[in-house]
C-alpha cells in the first residue's frame, strides 16, 4: 500500500524541482539563522545565491558528527527555542550527546515519513502494531508511534524488553505488525517457543526491522521463524530518526523519502560525489527540517544509491542495504558503541593505557554478546583474586552505566592480544549477519 502516492510516485523531474525549491529555502534559512552555517558558507566563499541547481549542493561544505557534538546542545537551532516541541538525542563517542530538536512541522514530517514506512510493510488502519523499539530519547519508539497514529492503526507501545509480556500481548491482542530490532525478533521467537507458544500460528503478518545491521540470511531466518514478511528500515537520530528510508514489498533496496531527505553518496577520502551504483559514504541534507537542519551530513554509513523502475510504483531513489561503516562504530543490540568509549572506561578504572580486544558475537540467544579481553598489567595486578574480581566488576558496571550495554570482561595475560603494526586491532566482530 502506498501511503502518499502523490509524493512517492511523483515524476522524478517534478520532484527535482521540488527538492531545489526546498534546498534554496533551506540554505537561506540557515545562512540567516545559524551562525555555525553562515561561518561555514563564508569560509567556503559562497552565499545562498550560489545555490541555483541541485548540483550546486556540492559547493556546500559537509557537516560532521563531531561538529554536532561541538555545537551541543542548541548550536544548530534555526528557530526560536519556543518553537521546539520535542528533543531526541543519541550518545556520542565522548559522552556528549547528538541532539535533534523538532518543531511541530518537523514532527509532522517525521510522522509522514514513518506512515510511508509502515504502509510499505502493508500497515493500514485495521492493523495492530506492537512497537518493541525503546521509547525515550532513542528515536525508534516514538518514530513508529507517530507513523502509526497518522495511519490510525492500533499502536501498542510496548517499548523494548519485557519479553514474556511481549509474547502475551502478541497472542492476546492479535498483533499483526511487529516493530523492533531484527535480533530481538529472533529472541522473541525463541522465547515464545520455550513458553510453548507457536509464534507462527499467531496473527503476525509483517515486521519493520532496523537500528542494527542485518542480512538477507537473517531475513530468511526471521521470516521462517516468525511467519511474517520482514522489511528493512533505516534512519538515524541526527536525520529525524527512523523513516529516512525503507523497503517496499519488492525487498530490493530501501526507498528514500527524498522529498525530505536529500541523499548523496561520496568518496569518504576525497569527498567527491559518486554516481549511482558506486559504494561510498551516505550523506543527507534535511530539505524541510526547521528545528536543527543538517546540510550534507556525513552518516559514515556505507551504501550505494540506485534508480530503478520499482514494480511497486514508487519513483524515489533507493539505497542498498547498508554494507558497513567508515568508522569503527559497533552497533550492539541497537546501541551505538565506539571502541574509544570502552578504552576511556578502562583507562578511568585502571589508571593505565590498557591493551584490550572487543569480541562481538551473536550467540544462541540471537542477541549480541560483548566480551572485552583486558590484559592484566603489573600496575593494577593485585595479589588477591578478590582485588582482580573487583576491578572486573567495576569495569562491567561502568560499561553498563555509561554505555547502556552489558559486557563480559575477561582478564588475560600480557601479550595475549595480538599487536599489529600501526593501528591496533581493537575489535573482532564474529556476528554472522
Amino acid at each position, binding site marked *: 500500500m502506498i501511503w502518499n502516492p502523490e509524493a512517492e510516485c511523483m515524476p522524478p523531474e517534478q520532484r527535482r524541482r521540488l527538492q531545489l525549491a526546498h534546498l534554496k529555502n533551506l540554505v537561506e534559512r540557515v545562512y540567516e539563522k545559524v551562525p555555525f552555517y553562515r561561518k561555514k558558507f563564508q569560509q567556503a566563499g559562497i552565499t545562498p545565491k550560489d545555490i541555483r541547481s541541485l548540483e550546486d549542493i556540492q559547493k556546500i561544505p559537509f557537516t560532521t558528527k563531531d561538529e554536532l557534538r561541538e555545537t551541543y546542545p542548541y548550536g544548530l537551532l534555526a528557530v526560536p527555542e519556543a518553537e521546539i516541541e520535542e528533543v531526541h538525542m543519541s550518545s556520542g563517542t565522548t559522552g556528549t550527546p547528538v541532539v535533534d530538536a523538532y518543531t511541530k512541522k518537523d514532527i509532522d514530517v517525521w510522522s509522514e515519513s514513518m506512515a510511508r514506512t509502515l504502509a510499505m510493510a502493508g500497515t493500514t488502519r485495521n492493523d495492530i502494531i506492537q512497537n518493541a523499539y525503546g521509547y525515550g530519547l532513542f528515536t525508534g519508539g516514538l518514530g513508529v508511534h507517530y507513523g502509526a497514529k497518522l495511519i490510525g492503526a492500533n499502536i501498542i507501545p510496548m517499548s523494548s524488553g519485557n519479553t514474556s509480556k511481549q509474547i502475551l500481548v502478541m497472542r492476546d491482542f492479535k498483533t499483526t505488525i511487529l516493530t523492533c530490532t531484527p535480533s530481538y525478533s529472533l529472541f522473541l521467537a525463541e522465547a515464545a517457543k520455550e513458553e510453548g507458544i507457536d509464534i507462527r500460528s499467531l496473527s503476525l503478518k509483517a515486521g519493520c526491522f532496523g537500528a542494527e545491521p542485518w542480512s538477507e540470511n537473517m531475513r530468511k531466518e526471521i521470516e521462517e521463524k516468525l511467519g511474517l514478511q520482514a522489511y528493512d528500515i533505516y534512519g538515524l537520530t541526527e536525520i529525524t530518526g527512523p523513516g529516512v528510508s525503507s523497503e517496499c514489498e519488492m525487498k530490493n533496496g530501501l526507498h528514500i523519502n527524498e522529498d525530505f531527505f536529500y541523499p548523496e553518496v561520496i568518496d569518504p577520502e576525497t569527498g567527491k560525489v559518486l554516481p549511482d551504483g558506486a559504494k561510498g559514504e551516505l550523506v543527507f541534507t534535511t530539505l524541510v527540517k526547521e528545528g536543527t537542519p543538517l546540510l550534507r551530513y556525513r552518516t559514515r554509513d556505507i551504501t550505494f544509491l540506485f534508480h530503478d523502475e520499482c514494480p511497486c510504483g514508487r519513483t524515489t531513489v533507493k539505497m542498498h542495504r547498508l554494507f558497513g561503516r567508515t568508522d569503527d562504530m559497533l552497533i550492539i543490540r541497537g546501541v551505538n558503541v565506539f571502541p574509544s568509549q570502552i578504552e576511556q572506561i578502562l583507562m578511568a578504572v585502571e589508571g593505565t593505557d590498557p591493551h584490550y580486544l572487543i569480541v562481538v558475537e551473536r550467540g544462541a540467544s540471537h542477541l549480541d554478546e560483548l566480551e572485552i579481553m583486558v590484559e592484566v598489567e*603489573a600496575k593494577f595486578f593485585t*595479589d588477591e583474586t578478590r582485588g582482580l574480581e573487583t576491578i572486573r566488576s567495576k569495569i562491567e558496571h561502568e560499561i553498563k552505566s555509561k554505555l547502556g550495554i552489558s559486557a563480559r570482561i575477561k582478564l588475560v595475560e*600480557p601479550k595475549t592480544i595480538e599487536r599489529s603494526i600501526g593501528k591496533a586491532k581493537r575489535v573482532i566482530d564474529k556476528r554472522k549477519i
Partner: protein
Amino acid sequence: MIIKQISIFLENVAGRLAEVTKLLAKHEINIRAMTIADTADFGILRIVVDQPEKALKALRDGGFTAKTTEVLAVEVEDKPGGLARVMEIFQQTHVNIEYLYVSLEKNKDKAVVIFKVEDLKLGQKIVEEHGLGGTVSF
C-alpha cells in the same frame, strides 16, 4: 619473619603453570613454597623462592604479570595442635589472616607456614613476641 612472596597472574592455570616452573628451573631458582588461588576464569600463583629478585625479573622478562608481596614465615611445631596454637595466638591478638599455605622448609622439628596477614607490622610483632619464626631463612 617477613619474607618476599611472588604473585603471578595466570589466565589458563593448568597450561601456564608448567611454563612458570620451567622458566624458574632455567634460571636455577628453587621454589620453596607454592599455592594457587583460582576463579572460574583466572588464577593467581603465589610462590616463595630462594632468589626473589632474580625470579621476579625472570618472570617479567618472560612476559608474566608478577609482583612481590610481603608475607610472614611462621615456624609451626610439626605435631598435632601445632598450627592450632599459632592460629589461637593470632586470633587472640587480632592478627587477621587473608590466606596461608605450607612451605617445604623445615627448621629442626618445625614446619614453616606462610601467612598473608592484613596488618604485616602487627603480625611481625606477634610472631617475634611468641618466638614463632625468628630463625627462618630461605
